[in-house]
Structures are given as C-alpha cells and as structure tokens.
C-alpha cells in the first residue's frame, strides 16, 4: 500500500504487458516488422527477443496482408498472436484480413470459432513523418462489428488494456499514440487488467463534459486546468475504448454537465467524435443539453510535413479552451 509506485514509460508498460503474458502463457507470441533485434520502430518490443527467442518474437518480411493473415490463422488454431504494425498507416494493406476474416469469422461460422488476436497500431501525428506515416484511422475499426478497439492514454492503461486484450477471445485492436511512447507514469508491477469497454472519468466537473482519446486526453486535462481558473469546471473523460462504447458513463456525465465537447485526432468527419455526438444526440441526455455538441478533430486534410502546419492540423490546447468557452458561455 505504501510502496512508492514505480514509473514506466508508455512503451515500457506495453513491453511489460507482453513479457508477463508470454511468461504466463506459452501460446502468446509476437509478430511484426523489425520487432526482434531492432526492438521495433518505436522500441516497444525492445529486448524481448533476447528473453523469449526468435520463435516467439518473429520478425516478418514486409508483407502486412500476409503476415496479418498468418496471425489470424495462428489465432484460429489456438495460439495468441500479438501483431505489431510498424505504423498504423500500413494497416491499409491488411484490412482484408482484419475486416473480412478476423472480425467476421466467429459470426460467419455461427460461433464455432473465436479469433484471439491482438493488433497494435502506432498512430498519430507530431513526428514530422507526413501524410503516409501520421494517420489516426481508429474510427475505421470502430465501424466494424466483431472487432474491439482500445486506445490507452497512459502507461497504466497501456499495460492493463494490452493484458486484457491478450486475454480476450476476440480480435482486439490497440491504437497507441506515437507521442505517448516516452511519457512516464505509475505502473504497478503485477499483471493487472484494465477492462475493455469502460471509459475513465479523469477529472470531475460540472459545466462541460470533454470526451477525449489518446493524446487529446492530456490536452483536455491541460485545457481544463486553464478553464478552471476562469471558473469553468470541466469534466474530462478518457474514452479508452472505441468499440464497444461506454454509453452509460457518457450519457450519465453529459446529463449532469449538460454540455459535450469531443476531442480527437482522427479526421473530424466520421472520426470517433461523430459517433459520440450522435450517440448523445439520440440518447436520453439530449433533453438535458444546454448547448450544441462541439467537436474538435483532425483537419480535413492529409497530415502535412511542415511542423507548424502539422500542429495546426490537429487540436491543440488553445483550440480546446476556446471551444469550451464558446460552449459554456456563448452560443455558436
């Protein structure tokens, strides 16, 4: 109880989850490009190949569709693959296996199988890698029945959600924001689980609910601190899971605060905020709303290379502050 809580980076927390799962269950193995001796493009798998060997930390050829299919096949036959895309953008090559096979197999086969597959997607902008290495495509996956989609924002949740994902009998997609990998935070040593499907109220408030994902959770919390000084009391919810959505927590919060702002990095149109907004607009919370539902999402453009433009293309703290003020004080 009194032990000082150990701090790990988000990447280290993910790595610890994989190591603990591999120790506990020999069916668990890792696949991906350059996850062995290189340690992964973002050093998430790090030295795991030295601990677990090349048979369980498999460097694949650059062949995303095929490798994803290999993971599906292994999962179908009782193994527990954890698959790393080097960048989430490359999942565009593997949508067939993810969406037509992994997501649908249990249903198509009338429940005769399950596909216990975990896929990890380093996502998001901010690294100057431009349009083909910076996307946030999580909303696509949240549109697909049969998948579960999580997006941890802290080292704690990264470890706990990854362990839950590995336990889960169904395909679970984990979206990891690249800018979070080096972020540190308390991470218990034991192999704890964070439940899939539960949002987390990170800050209680009375005037406005901000539902945010991934790095936007931190920006929302920073914005909330600024707004608090102005007398605006913001509740910040870390969505954590995009499919299934934690409807109860969201509806309850918005019914209380009477205002909603969704903040996410994916393209604004049809990003996850569209679903949250629509879900609230058709829910019992609708009648409690005292303001239009605000959304801040990625700009309607590919991610540009120039660093100032790149920043301008995704929500920043001042954008959140300004939008929150408008929702609480003004009319739109």
């Amino acid at each position: 109880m009194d032990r000082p809580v150990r701090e790990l980076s988000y990447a280290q927390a993910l790595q610890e989850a994989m190591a603990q799962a591999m120790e506990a269950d020999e069916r668990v193995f890792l696949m991906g490009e350059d996850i062995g001796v290189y340690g992964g493009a973002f050093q998430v798998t790090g030295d795991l190949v030295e601990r677990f060997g090349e048979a369980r930390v498999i460097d694949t050829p650059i062949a995303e569709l095929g490798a994803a299919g290999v993971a599906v096949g292994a999962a179908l036959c009782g193994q527990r693959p954890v698959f790393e895309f080097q960048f989430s953008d490359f999942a565009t090559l593997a949508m067939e296996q993810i969406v037509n096979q992994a997501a649908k197999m249990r249903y198509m086969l009338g429940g005769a199988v399950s596909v216990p597959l975990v896929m990890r997607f380093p996502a998001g902008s901010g690294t100057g890698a431009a349009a083909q290495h910076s996307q946030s495509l999580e909303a696509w996956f949240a549109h697909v029945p049969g998948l579960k989609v999580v997006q941890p924002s802290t080292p704690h949740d990264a470890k706990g959600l990854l362990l839950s994902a590995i336990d889960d009998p169904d395909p679970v997609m984990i979206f990891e924001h690249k800018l979070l990998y080096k972020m540190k935070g308390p991470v218990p040593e034991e192999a704890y689980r964070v439940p899939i499907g539960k949002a987390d109220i990170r800050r209680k408030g009375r005037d406005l609910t901000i539902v945010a994902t991934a790095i936007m959770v931190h920006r929302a919390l920073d914005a909330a601190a600024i707004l608090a000084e102005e007398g605006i009391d913001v509740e910040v919810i870390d969505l954590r899971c995009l499919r299934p959505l934690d409807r109860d927590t969201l509806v309850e919060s918005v019914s209380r605060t009477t205002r909603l702002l969704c903040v996410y990095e994916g393209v604004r149109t049809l990003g996850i905020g569209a679903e949250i907004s629509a879900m609230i607009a058709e829910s019992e919370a609708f009648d409690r709303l005292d303001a239009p539902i605000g959304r801040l999402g990625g700009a309607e453009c590919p991610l540009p290379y120039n660093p100032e433009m790149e920043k301008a293309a995704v929500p920043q703290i001042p954008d959140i502050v300004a939008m929150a003020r408008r929702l609480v004080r003004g009319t739109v």
Partner: protein
Amino acid sequence: MTVQMQIDRRANRPAVYDRLSNEQLRESLRRMHLIRQFEEGAEQAYMRGLIHGTMHLSIGQEASAVGVCVALGAADKITSTHRGHGHCIGKGADPKRMFAEFFGKETGYCRGRGGSMHIADPSQGNLGANGIVGGGLPIAVGAALAIRQQKRDDVVVCFFGDGASNEGAFHEALNMAALWTLPVVFVCENNQYGMSTSTARSMSVPNVADRAVAYNIPARIVDGNDFAAVAEAAFEATDRGRGGLGPSLIECKTYRIRGHSRSDRNRYRSKDEIDAWSRRDPIVRLEAELVGLGILAEADLAAIRQQVETEIEEGIAFAQESPPPAIADLLRDVTSEQP
C-alpha cells in the same frame, strides 16, 4: 500430352494405392459421388427457389478435392475457397449439415449465418471456405505456424484457384511458408479460368507451378482429374511437411464443368471445350480404374451410387425440416460475449 502419358503409364496399379486400403479407395469414390450429387442437389434446390444467394459448383473437380484429402488425418487442417463443397466433403463433412447451411437453417454448419461460401468444421480440421479469393492462403500459413509452435506433426492443405495465384496474398503467403519451412501443402486447382478470365489472360507464365521456383518451393503438376495422380502427389507433399521439410505446391490441372456461379452466361469458353473436359470426368475414370484393378465390382458401384442418392435425399429433407435461426439471435456470436 503429359496427362495422356500418365494415364497410359498407370495401366497397372498406382503405387500410391499401396498406402490406401480398399476401404479407403471405396470411400474416396463414395465421397466423389457425394460431392457431385450434393452439388447437383443444391443446384436443383437453387433453381427451384429453395436456396438464395449464390454458389460455386466444383462439378468435374472432385478428384483434386478427394485425392488430396485422402492423405490427411483428422488432426490435419485445410483452408478452402468459394468453390469449397468438395474440400468440405473430402475432409469428412456431413452433407446434412451442409444442406442445412444452404437452406439457412440453425442446424447448418454455420447455423445459417454463413451459407455456401463460409462452411467450416473446425472440429474436423476444416478451417473454412472463404469468400475472398486468396483469403485462405495466409491463414493456412498461420495454421501451420501454430502446428509448429504446438510441436505437432500435422500438416495444413491450402486449396486455391489459378485466379487466386495472381493475388499479392499468394506471394506473401508462399514466401513466409518457405522462409519458415512450415508444413503447408499449397494445392492449386487450376481449372483454367478465374471467373471469365483464362490463365493466359491473367498470368504471365503458363502454369501456377512455374511460380513456385520464386519461393524455392518444390512443385508438381498433375492431372487433376486423375484421383491416383493427385493422391500420389498429396502423400509426397504431406510426407515432406510432416518430415519438417517445409511447404510444397501441387497444381491440379482440371476444369469446372458448370459456370462460375449462378449468373454465368459462359461467353468466354466454347461448348467444345466443355464437352472435351466432360469426357475426362474424374468419377467415371476412378470407377473404371477401381473396377479394372479388381478393387470394386460393378455391383459395388451401383451400391455406392444408391447409398449416396439416399444420403443426399435425406440431407435435403433434414435441411428442409430444420428450424431457421431465431431472428432474435441476430447479434449472437458477433463477439464472444453474448448480447
């Protein structure tokens, strides 16, 4: 023609028959009949409006399905295709439950959720048909990886078509299987067309087997309408796989007698071509061979056909009488948590 030569050469008993009991040979012939009559039954049911959707018949290709599966045990696995009824029956499926699936019934292999293109029976090692051309190729490699990781000596057979060999998935799957020396047998049923597109119009080499060298995978071309030729190649390839020597490719030259699917107008091929291949019917050939070798008598043939006919009739009746799934179960089995 290579094919013709092979037939002449086997005036005597094929060597592979030493690995098969007479009972197994009889059962193989029976399964080929079962496939044929299953598909004819399904076709009629479709034309009578009893089945909806589409289906892809493999009539004329029964030898490759059964000739390969005869080399497999219950623990071995297969992945199949949109044209998968033969593989399914080859791997031991019950036509009753297949018909029930076609009729969209709760007693079907997929409880009526999958239809013709998704029949599977994981309990028998059948990982399923697939609606996506090439979709099963990497899945088969993954199944083989699981076998390796589980330290078993099973093999995986991956059925695919000539058309599928043009998909990137083919390239990626074969490369990984060879790179990792996995126990997969890639069985191409080259029926000369991917839908309307002949291999000459879709492939830059004449044979699918010509592609295997790019992966350092040994490949054989066999007369796909010759049960024994297929079985021989299948035993050789599965032996290799079980022995830890890695993947193989078998290209079965064959032909689908029916159109691609229900909507095919057959504009891309000639009646002569279809007739010529009809004369090479794999069932007729196997019957003649087994009788010639004294393994079966004419009376046995009649008995088999009769038994199969009854089984098919019973299967259709079973399917018709079975209950449909409850609409209330629409969201069941989307994930493992039930709604």
